[in-house]
């Protein structure tokens, strides 16, 4: 059927006339039957075309639908596990950030406290101002030490004497012209800035037989004022430790 040899006498013109002749209506039973079949074909063709256009999934056969469903289910399971994974990562990152934030805040607070205690940072807060007027320079270093001890006992947190920050390393020395604080001669009058509980500190200094009584007994005078806003602006650099290292606490 596929390779019928062409008859040599059929030319193009003959073929066309053959086609035209075939188009001439001949109302034989066979022709009508062929027409009916062709009508059926046209009908089925249009129906199928419309059906294919109208329906998406409903035109697929059952096995295709099952495969499609499985693929979709697999994909959604995959995506869901991915979502869970990403959420876990996000939570981890968020909690990590929180922990770091908390650690940073704690470290900052600790650094502030230790900076004030070691004299590394300027400080401000309620406290007292003490002015010692000693024109004849009768006060000795031991008196200064007494005052400082009294202040520390009263809970003073930051102390400054004439622009010198007073810390654990501060020393008072009797010099030829007067008392030296960390090697610097105090002025007259000498001003102390002390941050701490104003009431407790003033009580401690004024106690009978206490520090200010000692000052007065030596012939100098003192002025004590409490304030809600005392500034300790002097700082000192903390030396690098050469021998001591912190013990790691478990």
């Amino acid at each position, binding site marked *: *059927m*596929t390779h*019928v040899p*062409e*008859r040599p006498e*059929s*030319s*193009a013109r003959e*073929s*066309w006339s*053959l*086609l035209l002749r*075939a*188009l*001439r*209506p*001949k*109302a*034989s*039973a*066979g*022709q*009508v*039957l*062929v*027409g*009916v*079949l*062709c*009508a*059926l*074909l*046209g*009908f*089925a*063709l*249009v*129906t*199928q075309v*419309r*059906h*294919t256009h109208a329906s998406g999934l409903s*035109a697929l*056969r059952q*096995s*295709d639908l099952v495969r499609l469903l499985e693929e979709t289910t697999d994909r959604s399971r995959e995506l869901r596990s991915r979502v869970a994974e990403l959420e876990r990562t996000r939570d981890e990152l968020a909690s990590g950030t929180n922990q770091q934030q908390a650690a940073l805040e704690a470290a900052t607070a600790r650094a502030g406290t230790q900076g004030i205690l070691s004299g590394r940072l300027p400080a401000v807060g309620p406290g007292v101002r003490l002015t010692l007027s000693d024109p004849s320079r009768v006060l000795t270093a031991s008196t200064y030490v007494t005052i400082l001890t009294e202040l520390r006992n009263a809970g003073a947190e930051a102390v400054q004497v004439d622009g010198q920050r007073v810390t654990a390393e501060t020393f008072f020395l009797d010099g030829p012209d007067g008392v030296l604080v960390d090697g610097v001669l105090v002025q007259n009058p000498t001003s102390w800035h002390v941050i701490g509980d104003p009431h407790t500190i003033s009580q401690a200094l004024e106690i009978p037989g206490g520090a200010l009584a000692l000052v007065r007994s030596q012939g100098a005078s003192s002025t004590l004022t409490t304030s809600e806003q005392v500034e300790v602006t002097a700082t000192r650099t903390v030396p690098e430790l050469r021998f001591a290292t912190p013990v790691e606490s478990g």
Partner: protein
Amino acid sequence: MIALLGLALGIVAGLLFEPTVPVGLQPYLPIAVIAALDALFGGLRARLDGIFDDKVFVVSFLSNVVLAALIVFLGDQLGVGSQLSTAVVVVLGIRIFSNAAAIRRHLFKA
């Protein structure tokens, strides 16, 4: 002429009635249509070869359609329905092309 008229009539009827394909027929209708198209082209070629016969056309048309549907049905039962319908479409497509080529040679000598 009657065949052409019938074809046009069928197309118009399909457009007018907008029939829905029964679910049971859905896998077979496209194959049947392809088979019928093959028969149609075969008939046209036979006409140009001068060996057309009404009876042969009717029988080949019907047997083509039924056989194609039967093959796809069998494939569905065996679980290779989609592959087998692809195979049928390929074979029928090749036949349609060779018939069309023969018709073209007849009409245009090329």
